[in-house]
């Protein structure tokens, strides 16, 4: 029971982990980002989304954007001490003092089709049938409903989405014929969060006729 979701947007940034300070996007959507979009529409601890295929529908183009960003994170111990004494003085971050200017090389005008299915996890209870979750996802996606607005890599690049019903044709691929096959190199597959491991896993992304086959997360060709 695979689902097919058409997603598109004006910009996208699927940040390469090796170039994350001045962000550089991957050429295409990562399976991890695709999973995030599906989870934004429907997810429960009982299911795990698995991305099978990513169709690239638009030519791959980049644009650079430099923004003023903040280099500091909220400090938990400061917050804890403020909470204890019951006042918030000195908790804020003064943006001028931790100012970073960072460029991001982002994708422009992207569109993909995500083909995915889900498996049940051991958190599934007796009431969690695959059919129930599938129809919940289909209902939400076809009506434009979402738990939170899905995004293309980062939250400022909101994603539009539409369900492709069973049997309906895929949207046309606008890639030039000689650009439909490419070796995209090693790409992040997803991050393994089990037991707090937070371990990234990679796979060799190859585009064949505009389509990237994504191996299962625990397959042999997915490496640490």
């Amino acid at each position, binding site marked *: 029971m695979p689902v097919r979701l058409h997603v598109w947007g004006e910009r996208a940034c699927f940040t390469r982990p090796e170039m994350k300070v001045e962000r550089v996007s991957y050429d295409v959507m990562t399976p991890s980002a695709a999973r995030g979009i599906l989870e934004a529409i429907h997810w429960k601890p009982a299911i795990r989304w698995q991305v099978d295929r990513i169709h690239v529908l638009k030519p791959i183009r980049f644009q650079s*954007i430099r923004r003023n960003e*903040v280099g500091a994170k909220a400090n*938990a111990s400061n917050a804890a001490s403020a909470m204890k004494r019951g006042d*918030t003085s000195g908790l*804020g971050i003064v943006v001028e003092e931790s100012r970073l200017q960072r460029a991001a090389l982002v994708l422009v005008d992207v569109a993909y089709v995500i083909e995915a299915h889900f498996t049940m996890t051991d958190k599934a209870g007796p009431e969690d049938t695959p059919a129930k979750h599938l129809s919940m996802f289909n209902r939400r996606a076809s009506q434009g409903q979402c738990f939170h*607005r899905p995004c293309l890599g980062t939250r400022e690049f*909101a994603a539009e989405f539409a369900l492709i019903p069973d049997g309906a044709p895929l949207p046309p691929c606008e890639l030039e014929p000689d650009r439909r096959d490419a070796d995209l190199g090693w790409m992040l597959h997803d991050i393994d969060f089990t037991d707090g491991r937070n371990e990234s896993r990679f796979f060799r992304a190859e585009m064949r006729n505009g389509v990237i086959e994504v191996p299962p997360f625990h397959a042999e060709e997915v490496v640490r």
Partner: protein
Amino acid sequence: MSKPVSNRYEFVLYFDVANGNPNGDPDAGNMPRLDPETNQGLVSDVALKRKVRNFVALAKGDAPGHEIYMSEGATLNNQHKKAWAAIMPEVNKDEEFKKLPKDQQKARALTAWMCANFWDIRTFGAVMTTGVNAGQVRGPVQFTFARSVEPILPLEVSITRMAATTEKDTDDKGGRTMGRKHIVPYGLYRAHGFVSAPLASHPVKGTGFSEDDLELLWQALCQMFDHDRSAARGEMATRKLIIFRHDCALGNAQAQALFDRVKTWRVHAGSTQPVGSPATDNWPPARQWADYAVTIDRDGLPAGVEIIEKC
């Protein structure tokens, strides 16, 4: 505190600039941001969020629960902190506090407390090193880049100053220096935004972003430019805020279908044409809000969606 927001919203914000620079590009010597492919002007999401934060800080001052985490400029809080350090220097028990976030319950209480006190964390979220949910709070409100309706033509304006900074400059340049300003003669920008209700009202993930907070957000969007005057900005103003209210948390319609209902037109000498239409080729460039018209298609609105015009 009113109850957390439990309806999904989308909004379209129109604002314009006259003879000012709405958002400088640090990569291009502070020129107005441009989409290099279409020459449309851009204003980044973070620039808009900054103005919302500044407005809330102004409007709410020291009101409890409305502090701004990402503050700009000198904050009184730092003065308070100094006072605190002077009176009770022993409060720095970092080692003890470092253990706290490991405990899920306490970490969650910490996050909840931050959400309750800081308006911007409740609204936009924040990365906090609390170790819960990857250590970050996602806020319900999300902005995208604003884009000008038509291509803009930034102008570089050279200006002189009848004084010099250093004595050497005074000697070399006769006491006068030159500078540059970048302006957009006129630009109408359109931004899209989202309010994801579950991120406000969900029992675990919700930040408690309330109906009152939402009202304050709308107010901020309508008035934020009125309190952001500066030499660089020129005249900026919010022209229209169109809100789509869904009658449930997950929404009743596709966002893009709702956004498509709002259309921008060019107006000249009594005739109205779509933006970019060849019929407008010989028209003079837009220089005021009256050169544009915005229409909202209200026919056949999906059930459960309501259109609200705030300004």
